[in-house]
């Protein structure tokens, strides 16, 4: 049950999702990945994709226009 972080600040779609997919592949079940994003478009596809894979997802608004997407594999 380890926690990992992925910094996608300043990156536009579809880069955050591609990075998230790659990173999630290396995680084991129960691990948590926290993705830092500041592009609103990634807020649509990253949580959507993760839920489609059956992962638990919660998003926190860290600041105006900055989010942490928390994905549990």
């Amino acid at each position, binding site marked *: 049950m380890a926690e990992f972080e992925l910094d996608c600040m300043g990156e536009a779609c579809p880069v955050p999702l591609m990075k998230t997919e790659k990173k999630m592949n290396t995680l084991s079940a129960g691990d948590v990945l926290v993705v830092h994003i500041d592009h609103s478009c990634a807020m649509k596809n990253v949580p959507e*994709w993760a839920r489609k894979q059956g992962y638990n*997802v919660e998003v926190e608004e860290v600041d105006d226009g900055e989010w942490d997407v928390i994905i549990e594999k």
Partner: protein
Amino acid sequence: MDKKVENYDVVIIGGGAAGMTAGIYCGRARLKTLIIEKALVGGLATYTNEIENYPGFPEGSTGLGLMELFQKQAKKFGVTFKLTDVRDVRLEGKDKVVETFRNEFHCKVVIIASGGKPRLTGAPNEDKYLYDKGISFCATCDAAANTGKTVMVIGSGDAAIEEGIFLTKFASRVIVSVLHDEGVMDCNEIAKGEAMRNEKMEFLWNTTVAEFKGDDEHLHAVALKNSKTGEITDVPVDTCFVFIGYLPNTELFRGMIDMTRGGYVITNEKMETRIPGVFCAGDVRDKFLKQVATAVGDGAIAGYAAEKYIAESEMFENQIMGETPRLVYVYNAASAGDRETLSMMEQYEQCHCDLQFIKADVYKSNGIAQRLNVTQTPCVAYIRDNQVVGCVSCGDICPAAIDTLVGR
């Protein structure tokens, strides 16, 4: 892991235009309000690059920009936002529960404003290429990544054509697959005219998607089938944008509330569903026009109705119903006749001090009348042991009739 329990007056499922407007009304009515949004606050409107028909913004606005203003206003009224998806709901009864992955939210009112999700074509391999792998539902999100490339748009409605025009600012070719005969589109005439004149836009008439083709990484082509000739042609593209309508997000509520065959929630004009205390607003509702402007109208009604429902529930439980004998006078304060009868009732009350006397004005909202099964005003209901013993209404109201009602 036990879920953390939190209590609210109102929980709104969905943070789009309808949900946030309902939130603004509830927050302003000092109700403890929570909006749960599964992705980006703003909902479907954030997928639209330009919103030109929302009143108050003569210069137009971006969908995202407009929705940020909505959120700012909701926050101003103390509305809490939680960004996660709803896993389960229990809507019946007084104490309603909305469950997310880590929380259990208990509330008096649930407003369903869950909107829709893009409809898929259902063609083979669609699943393989969703989102970042070549099939997109958001031109605003993915246009820049397609600068100088060839893209396809599926559909001919307002969203398809308007977003297609927007895509021509980035892509070098925008190929539009239209189901209909040459020259026929589902969009408005202005968009149609503009699209037909746009040199970067090409139209493939009478076509539907037969298959999505590519390698493991990305989409390379869309195989289109001509519905007249049956001929299948591979069209090489970098990204395919699908705009063929939306499906309502209502799987969670299936079997609980009434829906159309398409899954849209059926409400009355007060946005009430079949279940007391459960309201519904916005695109998820079965209605004629789905726009930001109409979502705002729905949201306002749902928010106001939620406030009234909570106030009336409290009044009904704490004042109207009770063990001790009481008379409830249900009247419309705007009616002169009802007011006249009121003075008669007040005189009656003074002679019968042992009876509690409660006035319920239904001028603004008739929720109390409905709970008492009263259809006409004025009406006097006699309540004892938490039960309505009997009623006298309209012209029948006189001291003698009330004496009989209370058994004297």
